């Protein structure tokens, strides 16, 4: 365990990226939210949950965990024999061994947000897949930020044991009540030897909301991790920089990010993969659309072992003037036998492509929207089909042609 005094000092530590947020100006979040046995009964939140990919009828889902502010509101599990779903604090009480994972991937002293989460003993979701178990349908988790002027602190732990596989769809959103509020989510992910995890996250915030996720995945031998991140609606300030540590030989990680930056949105996103073991591979893909907002797309690949292969791609379309797009691809190698590449491109949509579609009787707005949808979703592999609909709807709503 960490020295509490040291962590307290980290409460004053500004994060490496993103604008600084004064966490003291927020009230404490609610710890005892309303409990819903059936998600269909959560009428007030249903639309928001659906918008971020949740199936409220829970069809085609192996289980669901819903948090409202800082407390769990719903937990259901259809695959008891292979999957454990509960709150992180319940899991800590139940399993002594959890201390071998708890705060071992993310450093509590990383910055003020992790320090706050550590010192609050924040709750979150705990997902454990037993060794060798292949979970058929995705597990869904939803983090709703409901109380305005409050801070939501969460600490999630995902363990996919040896030879197991899991898909998670997670949605984070503000409810209609919250706007000027802060979401902090620490996620510690462990994908063991020969295991795989596909993790798709959709965010849907409000115009003033601050968002500071802190995610680190530790990967075993021949373990595979796909991380999809989607943000298409306005947000105040979002800074996210998940990392995957490829510690096991032959492991791989893919980070796919698609963002739309509206006027007033300040987005600093990306990912880092550290290739620590032999024959590991990584891919970081970022696609962003800038419509008046700010976006920084980061990507960092660190090659520390022979046979490492990695590629990084940051592409951005600027719809009009008034926003800004910054691509920061970084490649770092510490051994000779690595193959690491990157490409980055920023520009507007090619006029000839728009006119080509217009010549088929498609209006300019529709042509732009078709091209943007294709640019965002067509280029990212492994995105759950159910999310595509939400993505298309968000792009329609953004009215990019005008």
């Amino acid at each position: 365990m960490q020295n509490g005094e040291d962590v307290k000092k980290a409460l004053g530590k500004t994060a490496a990226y993103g604008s600084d947020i004064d966490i003291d100006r927020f009230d404490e979040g609610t710890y005892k939210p309303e409990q819903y046995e059936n998600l269909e009964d959560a009428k007030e939140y249903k639309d928001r949950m659906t918008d971020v990919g949740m199936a409220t009828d829970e069809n085609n889902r192996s289980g669901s965990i819903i948090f409202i502010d800082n407390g769990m509101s719903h937990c259901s599990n259809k695959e008891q024999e292979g999957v454990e779903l509960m709150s992180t604090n319940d899991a800590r009480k139940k399993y002594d061994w959890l201390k071998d994972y708890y705060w071992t991937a993310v450093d509590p002293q990383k910055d003020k947000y992790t320090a706050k989460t550590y010192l609050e003993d924040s709750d979150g979701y705990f997902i454990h897949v037993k060794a060798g178990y292949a979970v058929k349908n995705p597990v869904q988790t939803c983090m709703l930020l409901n109380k305005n002027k409050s801070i939501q602190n969460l600490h999630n732990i995902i363990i996919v044991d040896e030879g197991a596989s899991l898909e998670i769809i997670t949605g984070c959103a503000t409810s209609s009540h919250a706007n000027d509020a802060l979401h902090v989510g620490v996620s510690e992910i462990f994908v063991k030897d020969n295991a795989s995890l596909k993790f798709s996250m959709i965010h849907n915030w409000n115009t003033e909301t601050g968002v500071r996720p802190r995610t680190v995945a530790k990967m075993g031998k021949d373990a595979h991790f796909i991380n999809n991140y989607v943000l298409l609606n306005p947000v105040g300030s979002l800074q996210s920089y998940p990392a995957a540590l490829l510690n096991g030989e032959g492991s791989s990680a893919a980070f796919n990010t698609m963002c739309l930056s509206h006027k007033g949105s300040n987005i600093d996103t990306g990912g880092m993969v550290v290739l620590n073991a032999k024959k590991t591979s990584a891919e970081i893909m970022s696609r962003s659309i800038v419509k008046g907002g700010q976006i920084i797309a980061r990507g960092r690949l660190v090659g520390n072992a022979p046979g490492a292969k990695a590629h990084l791609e940051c592409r951005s379309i600027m719809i009009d003037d008034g926003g800004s797009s910054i691509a920061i691809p970084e490649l770092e190698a510490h051994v000779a036998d690595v193959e690491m590449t990157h490409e980055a491109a920023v520009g507007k949509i090619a006029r000839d492509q728009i006119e080509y579609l217009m010549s088929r009787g498609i209006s300019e707005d529709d042509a732009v929207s078709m091209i943007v949808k294709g640019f965002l979703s067509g280029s990212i592999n492994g995105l759950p089909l159910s999310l595509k609909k939400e993505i298309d709807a968000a792009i329609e709503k953004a009215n990019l042609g005008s």
Partner: protein
Amino acid sequence: MLEIKDLHVEAGEKEILKGINLTVKEGETCVLFGPNGSGKSTLLAAIMGYGTCKVTKGTIAFKGQDITNMTVDQRAKLGIGMMMQRPPNVVGVKLGDIVKVAGKGDDSAIKNAAKFKLNGFLERDVNVGFSGGEIKRSELLQLTAQKPEFVLLDEPESGVDLETIDLIGAKVHDLLYDPKACGVGNAVKRHVASLVITHTGQILDYIGADCAYIMRDGLILCSGRPMDLLKDIREKGYGECVKCRMVKM
């Protein structure tokens, strides 16, 4: 159907069309001959309204309406369609999606993709990695869905093998002729007009043609019966052909 008067067009700050006068009547197929760089493709692009072409003088009228300042999609909605020689790649936009939207709810073209030998192409990003023949067939499938009243065909037969020419010829024929009328060829009444660029004249074996123009250096130098002009060009080349007509004029 189409009436162009004294059309001057700039592309890339350079005047490419220097006063074109041209008329295409309803159901008529007109051919544009002319050496490379004479402005034929620019003329087609100007009729479609592409942004690369800036009209500096003159007018284009279609079905009695002045379309000179209309947007590309307005022209398409009025009934103009275009088969491009080198359409752009549009990453992420599937051929099937375009065909679907172009068909405005009529999905008969999509169902006929196999007849265009485009099985498996509907799910592919349009034009990305398509061969020469595949691009032609894809363009024709899109146009078939779109059902234009007037089509601009930019070298429909260029760069494709002999077998594919047969297919393309048949599909262009179907596009121009009333499918309800029986028979094949000139005997049947055309219901769609067209302006066709061709160097070899091969496509005319399939669709026939009513009139032809020879373009050179941004001007139409002469008009005549398609086969007569083609014969002149074949025998004498553009240089002689143009000289002859110039003298006559």
